[in-house]
């Protein structure tokens, strides 16, 4: 039911790290603090449990249950500010949207079960071998509705800006990293085990479908981010766009020769993403506190460089990293990801989706587009004149937290070496060979 391998562990670390940071930050968040109730932390832990299960789910049923566990806690977390209509609305939308998406997904899962007669991901390739490709790919599409909802990929993304804006900031940051990490681990495993087979990839052309979704997601995410006036919404759309880039890593799985590399690239992307995205969200949260700017609007950040050099520089660095400017971690993350994708294309022979080099071009153009809105924020902070001159002071504890996030953003890419630190690669390979002989505690052994 649950796999115990490098992929799972790696993403579990990302999820648990994010959960830990979320708890730390929430202690001081006035949003949570004023309405302090112990269940906040319980909910974070339960949501993390669901996400951790998602990272390991190797069975269609487990996959669904894990997603529901994560979702139900997330709904409540999004509506945690019960007094605020914005928060309540976010939660309400989230519930309805999630219910519809998971319903469609359940439909797709039942189709897969009906065609193949098995719930085990590892047995699906054999079970689906003789089936009609059209039926399989339609079932896959329905499953994708659920996965796409969790990944916030187009056209299943529309809940995320509203929910991200309405939810308390620590929750938004948590959802944008941990929830996405769980969903990507799940998606990676799903496509790798159930659809990674060369024959199925050729027959169903799922890489093309995913490439298309990836293209739409990054483009629409980036375009919609332009012109956002609320920083939370901007980061929400930016998070959608990053999901689009990350899907390229899933597409690269179509070429078995680079699957380990693709997984490692997605894994590294998440590590980088954890630091830079959480960093950006936390700066926004800190600035939104009443004794500071008391605002999430970009216009109110004008002249921040003079009012609080530390926060302005920190936010600028996180944004630079999100753009993918060297030497920050975001650059290396993108580099590895694109490199894996290109190599998948170059080394693929006749594998569908492997040759979609146009997607890399699109991703690069998208990066150029993203420059616009990220740099607009930097420009506002650094070059526009402030409305008032009152200095904005960062809390000392927050400065410490920022350093914890800033330093990896600086040095991660420079220190990361696939041979020495490439946890996913090493362990995915190892578990692939081990799992057939040593049966992991919970999981059904899988073959590939």
């Amino acid at each position: 039911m649950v796999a115990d391998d490098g992929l799972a562990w790696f993403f579990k670390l990302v999820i648990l790290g994010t959960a830990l940071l979320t708890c730390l930050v929430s202690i001081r968040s006035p949003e949570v603090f004023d309405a302090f109730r112990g269940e906040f932390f319980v909910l974070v832990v339960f949501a993390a449990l669901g996400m951790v299960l998602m990272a390991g789910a190797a069975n269609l049923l487990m996959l669904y249950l894990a997603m529901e566990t994560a979702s139900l806690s997330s709904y409540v977390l999004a509506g945690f500010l019960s007094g605020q209509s914005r928060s309540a609305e976010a939660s309400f939308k989230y519930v309805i949207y999630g219910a519809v998406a998971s319903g469609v997904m359940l439909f797709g899962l039942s189709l897969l079960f009906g065609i193949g007669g098995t719930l085990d991901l590892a047995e699906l390739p054999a079970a689906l071998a003789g089936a009609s490709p059209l039926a399989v790919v339609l079932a896959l599409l329905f499953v994708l509705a659920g996965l796409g909802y969790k990944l916030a990929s187009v056209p299943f993304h529309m809940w995320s800006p509203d929910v991200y804006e309405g939810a308390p900031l620590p929750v938004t940051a948590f959802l944008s990293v941990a929830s996405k990490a769980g969903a990507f681990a799940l998606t990676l495993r799903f496509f790798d085990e159930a659809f990674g087979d060369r024959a199925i990839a050729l027959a169903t052309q799922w890489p093309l479908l995913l490439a298309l979704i990836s293209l739409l997601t990054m483009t629409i995410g980036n375009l919609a981010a332009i012109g956002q006036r609320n920083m939370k919404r901007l980061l929400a759309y930016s998070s959608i766009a990053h999901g689009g880039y990350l899907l390229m890593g899933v597409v690269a799985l179509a070429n078995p020769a680079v699957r380990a590399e693709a997984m490692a690239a997605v894994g590294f992307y998440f590590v980088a993403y954890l630091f830079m995205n959480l960093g950006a969200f936390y700066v926004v949260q800190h600035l939104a506190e009443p004794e500071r700017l008391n605002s999430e609007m970009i216009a109110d950040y004008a002249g921040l460089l003079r009012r609080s050099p530390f926060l302005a520089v920190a936010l600028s660095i996180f944004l630079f990293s999100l753009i993918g400017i060297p030497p920050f971690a975001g650059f290396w993350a993108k580099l590895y990801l694109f490199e894996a994708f290109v190599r998948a294309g170059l080394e693929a022979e006749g594998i569908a989706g492997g040759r979609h080099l146009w997607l890399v071009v699109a991703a690069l153009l998208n990066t150029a587009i993203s420059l616009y809105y990220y740099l607009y924020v930097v420009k506002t902070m650094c070059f526009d004149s402030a409305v008032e001159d009152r200095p904005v002071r960062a809390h000392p504890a927050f400065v410490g937290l920022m350093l914890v996030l800033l330093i990896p953003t600086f040095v991660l890419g420079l220190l990361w070496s696939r041979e020495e630190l490439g946890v996913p690669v090493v362990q995915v390979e190892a578990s692939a060979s081990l799992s057939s002989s040593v049966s992991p505690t919970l999981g059904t052994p899988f073959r590939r």
Partner: protein
Amino acid sequence: MELSGTLLAIVLFAPLVAFLIQILLVGRWVRGPRVAGAVVSLLGVGVPFFLVLVGVVPHLFEPTAVLWVPQAPLRWIDLGPLSFQVGLMVDNTTKVLLFMVTLVCLMIHLFSVEYMKVRDGEPEPYYSRFFAYLSLFTFAMILLTLSDNLLTLFIGWELMGLCSYLLIGFYYERKSAQDAAIKAFLTTRVGDVLLLIGLAIVWASVGSLRLPEVAQGVQAGAIKGWLLTLAGLFLFAGAVGKSAQFPLHTWLPDAMEGPTPVSALIHAATMVAAGVYLAARMLQVGLFDERTLLVVAYVGGFTALFAASIALVQTDIKRVLAYSTVSQLGYMMLAVGVGNYTAALFHLLTHAFFKACLFLGSGSVIHALHEAFHRHHLHADAQDMRNMGGLRRRMPLTFGTFLIATLAISGIPLTAGFLSKDAILAGSLAYVLEHPQHLMLAVFGFIAAAMTAFYMFRLVFWTFAGTPGGRALGPEADAVRGALAEVRESSWVMTVPLAVLAFFALWIFWSLHPASEGWIAEVLSGAEGWLPEAAHRAEAHGHGPASVHLWTMVLSVGLALLGVLVAALFYLYRRWSTERFAQGQFARVLEAKYGLDALYDWAFVRNAHRLSQWSGRFDLRVIDGAVNGLAYLVVGARHSFTWVTGAIDRYVVDGAVNGVAWLLRQLGAGFRQLQTGYIQGYLLVVFSGLVALAFLISAAFR
């Protein structure tokens, strides 16, 4: 003390720590005595010097011992099949360079403590910033010397370029200083970009930038033929920019706008020599083939002569020294070009000491004059040699050390400069005897030697001999004479470095025998332990028969003495007058520096200005803030389109249309309109998206 990785790490990172302390703490929170900044920097270079003295110098005579730190190089930036491996390496070349770099840096730091205290009569407001930059520079130079690979070498190289830029423009309120900083930065950038291309060629063909692996790769034929020549030429272009060789030499004389200690350290002793160091290393690993070496030799030889000729007519004391630096660097390149690795590095070392001494000596003079002129409220130029004269008696220590260094640079026996210059000239003479068709290489060297002696003694006679202010011109001439009579010798903080550097300009440190290359030849020409066997061809050249050495000595000393004699007849005894020469065409050509500066100004600077003004206007009209390359293109296309239709040009001019930025914003707005906030709308999108995709798939499978 044992030569260990820890020791090297301290040597490398102490200046960086000093820099960080300075830039983050001292300038900001330490309000008290600003000397605190100087102390931090002094420690930042003093500790490395001490460690080099006790930990590296004793190991000089273990020629095969090469230390690698860490043992296996770090894989730094990992791109799958290709990766960058970095580490530190200490071989013989590095050992002697480390000694020179740390000692010269320490002396110049010490000198600056006093020299930089005052700016225009006020306490220097950016005292600690100056020392911060010096520390960063020291770190970069040590990084360059210790690197076992061309990647970190290049990083150090670029960091030095940055420090050079910052320090040339240190007196940023002066327009000339700003311009000089920009000129230096951009001119060297030309070389650096070419260097980067050269590195890329090497990396792509050898698969590594580590020196030992490059040496092996070249030997195994991973890169050969014209590609090797091309790579060599690109790499050499980097050295041309950094070492101010013809035709990229124009930035160095202008760089004299920086404070004098900076000129001494960066623009004479260390950074500009880094180009020679790079060229020498390339010679060692075999990246310079015969064709490249010939280019190197000719560029070097020609630069030596060319710069020396310009120095003949300069009146600014620092500019004379600057052109002489260019000329001496040309000598070193000439030595590399004829394959004489040892002589090139030997001259690099001796030159660092005596040129630093010359610059600091001129700094001492300028400092004293500045003070005197300031006291008398004069606006006379404290760097113009015509406002000097007769300083021999007023500043005896400065004069003595300056004279020793002058003798050294002129190549008079019993000095270090004699030994190293002789090695270079002997090498080129031996080369010419083997290849008579390249006779000019030796001719360049020997004529430049005579010129060097002439212009250096001209400088000494103008500055230190004669009567105070004897050549002063203009309405303030009398006042200048009065002020000069009150000039005092600088304090010990400035004269001690002068004495130390002058000591190393004497022969005794380098060789007991006043006419042989001494231990340095033994240390440097010993096979470096890490080079593959056959790569020692660099050592094959350059050591002609003993008779060549003898003839060189006779010729070079004769020419140098001739230069001194002529200078004395012109400027000391005034038997001959320079008037006829000064009014001739040739002098005008020389004063215009052969017109190269003007040519570059016309060809590049002014056109670049025009281009930037044009694009600036374009920017103003088109893009309100974000510089968007894409928008640039599309607006250009759109512009031509509207030109064809001749309709809505005004909208473009008014900046109403933002090209792609506008288009993207519109698209974004379109997508935002989908985001109504109504959940039923969202679900509609979900289902219509699903249906659309399902149709697409079904259509594809039909």
